[in-house]
């Protein structure tokens, strides 16, 4: 066991042996180690959010042709800390008629649901919180608790905007769970396991290659689960003030805020893990700690895309969003799941008669699945074409609100 190549396992072993030598029972030591690990992961998650909030605001600013945070620290990198201080010192407001217990419980549920996800994400081959053999199901279950937090927040605030936000949240989160689960079943099928780390282990060819459609569905529906733009109907400020978090202030609001950013980062991590090979990369066999680096590189790339989408997309209408889910994503995911299952089964049926090289098998399989996905895409596009929205009848020409004045002739020349 080498400290350089695998420090975390090294420390964990050392600590465990130390505690054992003090005469503690094995069960107890395991419990202590798990507690320490959980604390570390949680703290790490929150610390990460400090950075991602800055990153996102910076990107947001740049895209909108602003500077973004730039005062505190180099490039404004410490901007989040003053914000935190401000939030900590703010007054807690509890509305009249609010259901106090529930009102206070909601933000905690909301954050903890996101944080619970991190328990099963493998950071490196040896650094896994817990390898649950139904890890994928666990992810889905935990997602459901997040929805609970939101709906409780909306209801307990005794505010109609909050309640409307909560209603939308239920409609959105519960509906988008359906295609998400279906899309998650595709990697489960391909990897022959429900454990998250086994899925990473199975990705000698990344699942994004095998099933780009599943990746896209998963990515889209988990974007919807986070409730960020373009799916931010549950807190659409132009309609609902701030949705379910309207009445919250101070640290309770901060928890929602952190929860949202952490959720966005978490879905990036999940996408990277399940579809982009997680910690897989060169030399992870020899130096397991390198897996962490690969994992975070991939995660940040996905996160970047998430942020870009948030910044550049307009908000959907509620009916569009639900239609998109039930009439497009869900059927597509169902078709994909069935066809993938059939193809994979067929592939392993004919495999013995193909005499492939051992090394070539995953690639041949990946190629077949890719072809299947391409085929589905083509069929989908053809079907969509036949459901094209009939061109809207133009009643009158749009009139510009303001017309730019003619530039003086000298400028033109």
């Amino acid at each position, binding site marked *: 066991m080498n400290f350089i190549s695998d420090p975390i396992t090294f420390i964990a072993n050392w600590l465990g042996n130390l505690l054992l030598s003090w005469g503690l029972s094995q069960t107890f030591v395991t419990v202590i180690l798990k507690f320490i690990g959980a604390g570390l992961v949680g703290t790490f998650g929150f610390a990460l959010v400090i950075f991602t909030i800055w990153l996102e605001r910076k990107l947001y600013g740049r895209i909108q042709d602003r500077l973004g945070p730039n005062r505190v620290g180099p490039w404004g990198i410490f901007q989040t800390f003053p914000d935190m201080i401000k939030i900590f010192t703010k007054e807690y407001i509890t509305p009249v008629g609010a259901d106090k217990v529930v009102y206070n419980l909601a933000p905690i549920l909301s954050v903890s649901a996101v944080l619970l996800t991190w328990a099963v994400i493998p950071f490196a081959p040896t650094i896994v919180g817990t390898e649950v053999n139904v890890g994928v199901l666990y992810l889905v279950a935990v997602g*459901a608790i997040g929805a609970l937090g939101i709906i409780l927040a909306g*209801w307990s605030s005794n505010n109609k905007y909050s309640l409307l936000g909560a209603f939308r949240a239920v409609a959105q989160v519960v509906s988008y769970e359906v295609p998400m689960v279906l899309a998650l079943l595709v990697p489960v099928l391909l990897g022959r396991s429900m454990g998250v780390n086994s899925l990473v282990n199975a990705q000698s060819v990344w699942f994004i290659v095998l099933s780009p459609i599943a990746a896209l569905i998963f990515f889209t529906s988990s974007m919807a689960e986070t409730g960020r733009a373009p799916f931010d109907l549950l807190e659409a400020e132009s309609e609902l003030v701030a949705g379910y978090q309207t009445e919250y202030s101070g640290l309770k609001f901060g928890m929602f805020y952190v929860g949202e950013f952490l959720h966005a980062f978490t879905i990036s991590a999940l996408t990277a893990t399940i579809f982009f090979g997680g910690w897989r990369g060169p030399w992870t066999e020899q130096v397991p700690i390198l897996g962490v680096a690969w994992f975070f590189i991939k995660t940040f790339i996905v996160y970047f895309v998430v942020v870009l989408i948030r910044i550049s997309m307009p908000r959907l209408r509620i009916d569009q969003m639900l239609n998109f889910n039930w009439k497009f994503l869900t059927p597509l995911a169902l078709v994909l799941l069935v066809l993938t299952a059939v193809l994979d089964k067929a592939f392993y049926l004919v495999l013995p008669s193909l005499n492939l090289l051992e090394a070539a098998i995953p690639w041949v399989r990946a190629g077949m699945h890719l072809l299947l996905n391409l085929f589905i895409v083509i069929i989908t596009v053809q079907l969509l074409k036949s459901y094209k929205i009939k061109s809207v009848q133009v009643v009158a020409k749009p009139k510009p609100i303001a017309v730019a004045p003619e530039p003086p002739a000298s400028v033109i020349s």
Partner: protein
Amino acid sequence: MTPEQIIFLIVAVVTLVAGVSVVTSRNLIHSALWLILALFGVAVFYVLLEAGFFAVIQVIVYIGAIAILFIFASMLTRRVMQDTGHQSNKNWWLGALIAFGLLVGITLVLVNWQGFTSLAPVLANQSERLSQLGLALVSPDLYVLPFELASVLLVAAMIGAIFVAGEKKQ
């Protein structure tokens, strides 16, 4: 008392208290929240019974879907945050009597059964259990028929629910 027994007792007490609160709470949303707690307790029992899969399913199905539906329906069907008076019938004592009588009856039956206090045998092939269950559900010799019936039931329920709850447009 082993740690497991301690956990069992704690969870059992919490679950039962939650259960009692479900049926007695005046505020329906609180009832639903207590229900969630009780369902969580049941999920912990599944873990204690070494059926982790069922624990996860319990969380997904009951808490992720059913409890949220309850909350949703409660919100839709009553004026929000307004407590109403008595939530029980006039003859609640009769119901309590019957429930208690049933408990006594069940306990009597159980106590007289010789397998009542049996202990758990060791579980073999921990990892393959799940796939065995999956195979059994779709194997023609075992449970494919009930399984398919359940799926038909689900589809029928879905269509029925949409039809019943959907607004009728004249």
